């Protein structure tokens, strides 16, 4: 069967082969239009097929979604899934989401408008299973069949699907073929959200069946709740890291700053994605220099469990974990007695702090939370630091992280800053609230099991790579000119790091990525450039 003919009902088909595989990916712009410019998909191993669900599209994203070995295990899994369906649709057990969920569940007119908006669907060459309504419609069919059985009414209302182990397994994987970016929802005439539907399906698997990708759950939220950070950084390790940062800052600026930690009653508590300390320490370093130079009364937090890691992967797959982390984070800030929290360059944690957990604590315990971007703009506008934009005299484009742009409306401050510091700034198309996801959204940036990286690099991040290459068309083939993708978000940076490497864009075409604060630092008149690709070897710090 061709992928084009696959229907939502086919989720229940018993096949040993994938329902749908890639036939022709969306072409990339020059110079990536030539053959051999991108690596092929890695072949699927037989052992993976036996133990996991490779029958959806041949990718395995959920490394805990194991095939049951016996008939009893199968039945047990289906039973648990269905009890999860009940809880998802119950006002008692899904209080915080029942209203938006039911609206999206009930009202789809199947007009198919949303498909054109989805970068995964388009990048894959319009693979049917990635159509935003495919997943939602399959879920509707499952619920209708479950609630109405084999009756005429069930068939009349679309409940024409088998609920067997393949249906459950494939749906479990399919819930992780959506970046939860909500671009499709913007185009829906009824305001429905297929990203929400994907997230809600993930909840059945995690909250009822205990199945979620390890990077999100076991080494994500569980680790964070146990150690304080999903990176595993403990309080002592965090304090050591801060000392290293101070050394690096001294080496770069020639000044010894004391990074304030646990300063009671500070005006600002700055919180970072702890991944920054490991993968991009230049980011917290740049924040520290900027804040100190601007003379802010600020602090970071080493106290309590979660104070120094702003991530909350729970918002992608599990409400209970999201609540545990969100409440603990807010308590840590409260204990410190700070006036406000400022979230660093991390998209999902912007949303987790300011939107998703906003209604999880009583109003008096809800310390105001701000984004770092208006604050950075305020610092630049105040004139308290000197800026020399000519230091950033290379092409710069901006990636808009879905979480704080589409879902929070923080659009202009970053652009105002870029206008002040980057003379060769150009927009991607589309941009702002209509941007495309980096392909790492909804947890994909950290999901690397089996061949899932291939799905991300070649499919979910493809549209973003397309946009980047388009934005730099004028200079892409001139290797002497560095090009900079400004991606002020830890997860997006993770996805970008991977695509630039996968497509060899740094090596071949001198394309780089990093955040916004690094670009501000690079425009500050320190002796050496701040951005690593502008530095000579002797400038390294």
């Amino acid at each position, binding site marked *: 069967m061709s992928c084009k003919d696959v*229907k939502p009902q086919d989720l229940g088909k018993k096949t040993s082969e994938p329902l749908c595989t890639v036939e022709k990916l969306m072409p990339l712009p020059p110079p990536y239009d030539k053959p051999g410019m991108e690596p092929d998909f890695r072949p699927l191993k037989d052992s993976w097929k036996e133990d996991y669900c490779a029958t959806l599209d041949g990718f395995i994203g959920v490394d805990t979604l194991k095939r049951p070995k016996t008939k009893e295990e199968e039945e047990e899994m289906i039973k*648990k899934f269905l*009890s999860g369906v009940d809880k998802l649709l*119950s*006002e008692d*057990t899904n*209080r*915080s*989401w*029942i*209203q938006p969920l*039911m*609206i999206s569940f*009930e*009202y789809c007119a*199947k007009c*198919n*408008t949303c498909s*054109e908006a989805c970068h995964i669907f388009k990048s894959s060459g319009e693979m049917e299973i990635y*159509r935003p309504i495919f997943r939602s419609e399959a879920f509707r069919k499952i619920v209708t069949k479950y609630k109405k059985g084999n009756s005429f009414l069930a068939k*009349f*209302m679309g409940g024409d699907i088998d609920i067997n182990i393949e249906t459950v397994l494939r749906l479990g994987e399919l819930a992780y073929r959506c970046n939860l970016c909500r671009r499709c929802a*913007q*185009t829906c*005439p009824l305001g*429905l959200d297929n990203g929400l539907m994907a997230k809600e399906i993930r909840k059945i698997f*995690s909250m*009822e*069946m205990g199945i979620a990708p390890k990077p999100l759950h076991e080494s994500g939220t*569980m680790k964070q*709740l*146990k150690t304080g950070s999903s990176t595993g950084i403990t309080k002592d390790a965090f304090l050591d890291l801060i000392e290293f940062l101070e050394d690096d800052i001294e080496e770069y600026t020639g000044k010894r700053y004391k990074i304030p930690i646990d300063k009671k009653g500070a005006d600002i508590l700055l919180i970072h994605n702890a991944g920054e300390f490991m993968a991009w320490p230049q980011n917290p370093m740049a924040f520290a220099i900027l804040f100190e130079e601007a003379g802010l009364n600020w602090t970071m937090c080493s106290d309590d*469990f979660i104070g120094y890691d702003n991530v909350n992967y729970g918002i992608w797959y599990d409400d*209970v*974990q999201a609540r545990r982390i969100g409440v603990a984070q807010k308590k840590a800030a409260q204990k410190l007695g700070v006036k*406000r929290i400022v979230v660093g360059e991390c998209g999902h944690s912007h949303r987790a702090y300011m939107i*998703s957990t906003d*209604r*999880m*604590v*009583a*109003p*008096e315990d*809800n310390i*105001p939370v*701000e*984004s770092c971007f208006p604050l950075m703009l*305020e610092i630049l506008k105040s004139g308290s630091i000197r800026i020399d934009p000519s230091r950033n005299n290379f092409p710069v484009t901006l990636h808009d992280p879905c979480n704080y*742009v*589409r879902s*929070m*409306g*923080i*659009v*202009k*401050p970053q652009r*105002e800053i870029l206008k002040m510091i980057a003379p060769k700034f150009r927009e991607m198309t589309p941009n*702002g*609230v*209509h941007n495309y996801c980096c392909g790492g959204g909804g947890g994909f940036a950290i999901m690397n099991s089996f061949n899932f990286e291939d799905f991300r690099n070649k499919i979910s991040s493809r549209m973003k790579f397309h946009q980047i290459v388009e934005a730099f068309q004028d200079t892409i083939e001139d290797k002497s000119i560095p090009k900079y993708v400004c991606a002020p978000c830890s997860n997006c940076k993770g996805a970008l790091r991977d695509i630039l490497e996968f497509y060899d864009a740094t090596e071949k075409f001198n394309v780089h990525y990093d955040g916004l604060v690094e670009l501000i630092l690079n425009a500050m008149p320190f002796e050496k450039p701040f951005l690593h690709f502008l530095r000579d070897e002797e400038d390294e710090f």
Partner: protein
Amino acid sequence: MVFLTIFTYVALIGFVVLSAYKAYQYAKMPMHSRFELYPVPKEAGGIGDEERYHYGGSFYEEYEWHKKPRKVSHLSEIIDMLKEMLFIKILFVNNQRQWWLCYAMHLGFYVLFAWTACSFLGAVGQLVGFTVNATTGGWGTILYYITFLLGISGAILVAVGSIGMVLKRKKDAVLRKYTNPQDYFNLLFIFAVAVSGLVVWVTDPFFNYGREIFKALLTFSPIEPSIANETALAVHIVLLGLLLLYIPMTKMSHYVGKYFVFHEVIWSNDPNLKGTKTGEKVRKALQYKPKRTWSAPHISVDPRSDEAK
């Protein structure tokens, strides 16, 4: 036909009551997590000259937003709502191919609402002694012709739109795949009502029957058409009445859902701050203790607890 008078009352009241019940079901659902989606049309103010609702900005763009008054434009929200209600703007912008037929049908509904209002006015006029006909002249004649124009154009728009959508769904491989028997049934039901109306119209080209129905309803007397074919009219009234009772029980009640999705979900971005209504609602919502819990092992044991360690 007293039955028709009673049935029409039942259908009209049923439509209103069932739609209100649907709205009540959504309205009584618990407060949910915030889930706004930009652009939010009430967001005013902004950096530079452009208002936030133009580019999708929000109050979070403001430095120390929590210390500043919210800038909200109700006018912009109303304009956006009107554009959506009157023109189905989002569909027009994102999917013009679907828009034509869909809009034809919806415009047909609006036109037929107007026809209903004109028929009602005509009936009231006639009951209080005005003449509403083609020849006397004055307001009565204007109303007579407006009623005619609205009736015929509305019925044709609905008929063309609904059957057009059925054919389109049948023809387009993708749409066909996602269309359930009920989806076809709903459209065909609407088409049948429109066609049955046109059949009556053939026997009564100036829609006198509309006024006659209202006169019967207002005077609680049997519906007895002067010109229109009685059987055709009875079929039309029964079909229309059944449709009115059926709509609120299906996803065709999206006039209810759409209100909630926009006002309660994607445009609802009031933060939980001390001393605000939203804050108080949150406080109340937090008091709820669920009767059941989810079953995965990590749910019952908090990883931070001594038990877990």
